[in-house]
């Protein structure tokens, strides 16, 4: 994991061949493609734009975060929820099919040099970019705790995969896992316990806002991965605006983000 990623060097529109696609939970799929160049270039927190459909509907590409990257084997995985027409099309791709994948894009998670105790907060699909991050951080001898939360048991994604890289704690709103509550309850517990150098979070806005608030209150630096509707993914169209905390203007989620320091942006509803 680089400090400032130098994505541009290998940014390309890759023709990625599907190696495997499996359902990991209801409506939730793990897609693995072969793309050695992309695998080499990708950093945790960055994303790609996947071309969906053969005609012009759907028209726009879909942004998905890198979930796992196996540089040696040239494999890149995406963890995604089937939501609308684009992800539905992706879900129908089978081994051997080719998907256009533009990436790597954006600014991923950054080093913090304060220390190596990391708290990863993944609400629902927010788990997607965190596995890649967990792997890279653990390689650099970070000690990690991963919080995974969802409304119900089947929404807790990839807990077993995370276990290789740190302590995993899960929570569900309906109590279908041992612990019942929201991920924010869990987060507050861990914050109370203390000893964290950096928080990395991904998930719905309400979770990210809570992380912003905790970071501001406790002084623990946090990095949050933000979502916004995108067109170009390259910083050219100004479509993916997120309000800047330091100026009166906007930042581009696809360029200055998707990972922002918690204090960098204002998340409106």
């Amino acid at each position, binding site marked *: 994991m680089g400090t400032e990623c130098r994505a541009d060097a290998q940014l390309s529109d890759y023709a990625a061949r599907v190696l495997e696609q499996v359902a990991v939970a209801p409506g939730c799929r793990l897609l693995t493609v072969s793309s050695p160049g992309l695998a080499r270039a990708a950093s945790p927190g960055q994303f790609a734009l996947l071309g969906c459909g053969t005609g*012009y509907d759907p028209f726009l590409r879909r942004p998905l975060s890198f979930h796992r990257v196996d540089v040696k084997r040239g494999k890149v995985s995406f963890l995604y929820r089937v939501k609308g027409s684009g992800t539905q099309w992706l879900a129908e791709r089978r081994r051997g099919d080719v998907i256009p994948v533009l990436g790597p894009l954006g600014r991923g998670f950054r080093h913090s040099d304060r220390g190596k105790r990391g708290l990863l907060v993944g609400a629902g699909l927010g788990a997607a970019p965190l596995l890649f991050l967990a792997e890279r951080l653990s390689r650099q001898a970070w000690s990690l705790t991963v919080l995974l939360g969802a409304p119900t048991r089947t929404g807790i994604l990839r807990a077993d995969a995370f276990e290789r890289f740190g302590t995993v704690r899960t929570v569900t709103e309906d109590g279908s896992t041992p612990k019942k509550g929201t991920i924010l309850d869990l987060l507050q517990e861990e914050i109370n316990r203390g000893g964290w150098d950096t928080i990395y979070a991904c998930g719905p806005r309400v979770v990210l806002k809570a992380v912003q608030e905790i970071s501001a209150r406790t002084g623990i630096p946090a990095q949050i991965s933000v979502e916004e509707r995108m067109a170009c993914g390259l910083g050219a*169209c100004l479509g993916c605006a997120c309000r800047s905390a330091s100026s009166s203007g906007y930042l581009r989620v696809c360029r200055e983000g998707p990972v922002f320091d918690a204090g960098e942006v204002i998340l409106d509803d």
Partner: protein
Amino acid sequence: MIDLSVEVAGIRMQNPVLVASGTFGCGEEYSPLFDVGRLGALVTKGITLKPWQGNKPPRICETPAGLLNAVGLQNPGVDAFIHEILPVMKGYGVPVIANIAGFTKEEFVEIAERLTGTGVDGLEINISCPNVKSGGMALGTVPELAAEVVEAVVESTSLPVIVKLTPNVTDIVALARAVTDAGADALSLINTLLGMAIDIKSRRPVLGNVLGGLSGPAIRPVAVRAVWQVSQAVDVPVIGMGGICRGEDALEFILAGATAVAVGSAHFRDPLAAMKIISYLEHYCEENGINDWQKLIGTAWKNK
């Protein structure tokens, strides 16, 4: 290789494939993907007199075969453009056309004056942006008002003046005639169609700005019609745009009467779209033994 070079409003271009304003940043964003210097010309995002922060998000909404955008002219203002962005854009060695947007005639003139002599190769007057509330639209829909702006800009600058028209009017030909009579050296058409979308979950408009501009293949038939009508009615060259995604689409616009074309939303689906279109046009001419490809311009109505 066939010579696709063309002159539009006195601006010499190596080929007739431009990028559409607001979809291509300053070139730098796409330069890791292809040689931006192979384009016919670069066109900037709309430039205002003062810095402009644009509309609140969401700014993008996908629609069938297209998208709505309500970016709303976010830009650092003309002075920052000249000092920070223009040098980057000039670095690609192709003409740079500045898309300018004023809220009054006077602002248009002032932006034009400041850009004159800076290295910008031409101006594209954007009197047609649907995403700005105050005035923007009205100026562009009333032939007399549009002509006044154009006349004032033409008088204030030595730069070639291209006027970009909105399709959201009853009579685009009347508008085209008015601005051409007022001195426009070329016309760009079309800008986006005024549209909107509602989120059935929240029961509210999707876009932060409520209204947005529709672009992409969905609007291509409207754009081709506008080019067809206008190119027969005026004597200045027309730059055609609206849903051009492939070489065949570009050719359709040329046959309809466009001298050059601009690629916009297509970049969002295929970032290499413009390059592929240039290759297509080269091959098309070779395969069809066309030496003077400009003879293709308007063939569809010349053959009528």
